[in-house]
């Protein structure tokens, strides 16, 4: 009990209010996506033309779309495809990028030079452009888009990993490990990589948000996820509804995309140890703070009282 409490407190101080809020929101979205068949009130693909553009009611909590599919259910199932794509992109990018980054940081010299320049080269290519090109070659679909974005996202993740690993590489403890007779693999993976996990996770969260946005854009253009499948990007492209004035049909998935990306970016920044901007920081309660709480910042409290 005490342990859980302690853990909770630490999480709270690491993430801060904005980070905790983001994490909570993401947890809800993720749970909804995983448990979609259980929590969705209806089949997302079940149409009934009688309910076309039905307003919110007991039968359809958020209303229904142009062919009478339940909007809430489509949003919930849409979370699945919308999160799966970026998860694959980030996963593949990390899988390819981390070994390259560790290799570069360990050996340095020309190995580092070549790998770093290749990263820079790929970094200069816009991911969306690469995805559009791939789709032009292999036809639309989630797979070609994910493959293209995975490659495009390697430098975004690996450059940060390389920089952090380089910093560890020159730490004295790495020399000490080498003298104990450990090999390269052991030192880089079990020690260096382990020590930079926060940086990797933070950057991965931010990349996840960007990849979600990119894939939604591609789906919106009809290049990734295809129409009848429930997906936030596809749903935003429902221009028919917009033209007929049913703006909520488009706004709801759009809002979910924006909020998810925002939450991921905030959370990612907080995990990798970035301070939140001043306007997001909690104001200190004036004089009511308990003494134990104020101990860290005595001087400001005294100054404010004077």
């Amino acid at each position: 009990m005490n342990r859980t409490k302690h853990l909770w407190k630490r999480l709270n101080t690491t993430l801060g209010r904005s980070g905790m809020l983001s994490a909570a929101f993401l947890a809800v979205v993720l749970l909804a996506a995983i448990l979609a068949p259980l929590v969705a009130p209806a089949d997302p693909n079940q149409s009934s033309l009688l309910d076309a553009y039905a307003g919110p009611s007991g039968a359809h909590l958020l209303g229904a779309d142009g062919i009478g599919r339940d909007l809430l259910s489509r949003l919930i199932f849409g979370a699945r495809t919308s999160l799966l794509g970026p998860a694959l992109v980030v996963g593949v990018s990390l899988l390819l990028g981390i070994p390259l980054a560790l290799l570069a940081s360990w050996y340095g010299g020309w190995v580092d030079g070549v790998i770093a320049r290749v990263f820079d080269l790929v970094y200069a290519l816009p991911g969306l452009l690469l995805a559009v090109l791939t789709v032009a070659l292999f036809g639309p679909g989630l797979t070609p888009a994910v493959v293209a974005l995975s490659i495009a996202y390697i430098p975004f993740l690996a450059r940060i990993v390389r920089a952090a690993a380089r910093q560890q590489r020159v730490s004295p403890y790495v020399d000490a490990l080498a003298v104990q007779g450990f090999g390269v693999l052991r030192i880089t993976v079990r020690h260096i990589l382990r020590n930079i996990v926060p940086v990797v996770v933070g950057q991965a969260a931010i990349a996840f948000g960007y990849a979600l946005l990119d894939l939604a854009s591609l789906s919106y253009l009809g290049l990734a996820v295809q129409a009848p499948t429930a997906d936030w990007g596809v749903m935003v492209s429902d221009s028919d509804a917009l033209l007929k004035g049913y703006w909520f049909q488009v706004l709801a998935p759009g809002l979910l995309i924006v909020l998810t990306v925002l939450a991921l970016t905030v959370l990612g920044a907080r995990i990798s140890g970035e301070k939140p901007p001043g306007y997001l920081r909690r104001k200190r309660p004036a004089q009511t703070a308990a003494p134990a709480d104020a101990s860290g910042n005595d001087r400001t409290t005294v100054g404010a009282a004077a």
Partner: protein
Amino acid sequence: MTAPLLELSGLTVDVATEDGGSRTLLDGVDLSLAPGEALGLVGESGSGKSMTMRAVTRLLPRAASASGSIRFEGADVLGMNAGELRRYRDGGVGLVFQDPRAHINPTRRIGAFLTEALVRNRGVGRREALARAAAVLAEVGIDDPQRRLGQYPHEVSGGMLQRVMIASVLLAEPRLILADEPTTALDVTIQREVVAILDRLRRERGMGMVFITHDLDLALAVCGRVAVMYAGRIVELRSADTLHERAAHPYTLGLLGSRPSIDARAERLSAIPGRPVSAFESGPGCAFAPRCSFATAGCESEPPAPTEFDGGLVRCARVEEIHAARMEAKA
């Protein structure tokens, strides 16, 4: 005489500079250590003590290159491939670093730090390794070793962490310990304890040791022989019990003269004039000549060869004249 444990001959380390040139950091170091012997390596900052140790463990910076020969139990260290090097580092040499806090991965528990090498390199079971680690922690004078195994490096004091570092070296049971200023980061009382522990356990286990320090008296206390380094060269090598009386090199004499004395009060401590130089800064002759009160024009141009003198090895061209003059002054 038994085969030496460690033998350096003509060890020279050059480091490449940004502008494409190179600078010499170590210049022809010859040293031989018998199994179980303790040798002190004494000198000022930049004299090449740590560079020698780094060369012996092949931890030289990327830009540096070593030539000459380093032999460990007859094996050529500079020529080892990756696998041989790992075996040599695993059971051959153990290194006690100057600053334990920087040399232990801060995010892992002390237990993990102490057992990793045993488990990974020796195939010892985790439970057995932890038991051995606890036993050695007790040996280096740490109370409640079980609790310490579960703590992180930042939770213990510097003195205790240095003991943990020594424990890690003892666990690997190397035949040679390299101690690179193991007590410089500690305060004086802790220093004494740590040195005593290192000295006792080394003797019990019959390990050889190279003890690197800039504290001449400390080296004399724990080592059988002491090598004094200056500007990348060994300038004097002699047994610890006779160094006080028989020191012959002007630099060693200067070091001995600049120590504070317990019974005599002095307005100022005597000091060696000038500042220490690195090997690459020195001219063609004796590197100490610009600071030496005995130097002649010949010292500046001709590098002195190491010569046998009064039971030790001295690298000074005028050693006999200086000795004679000192004897005369004493008489």
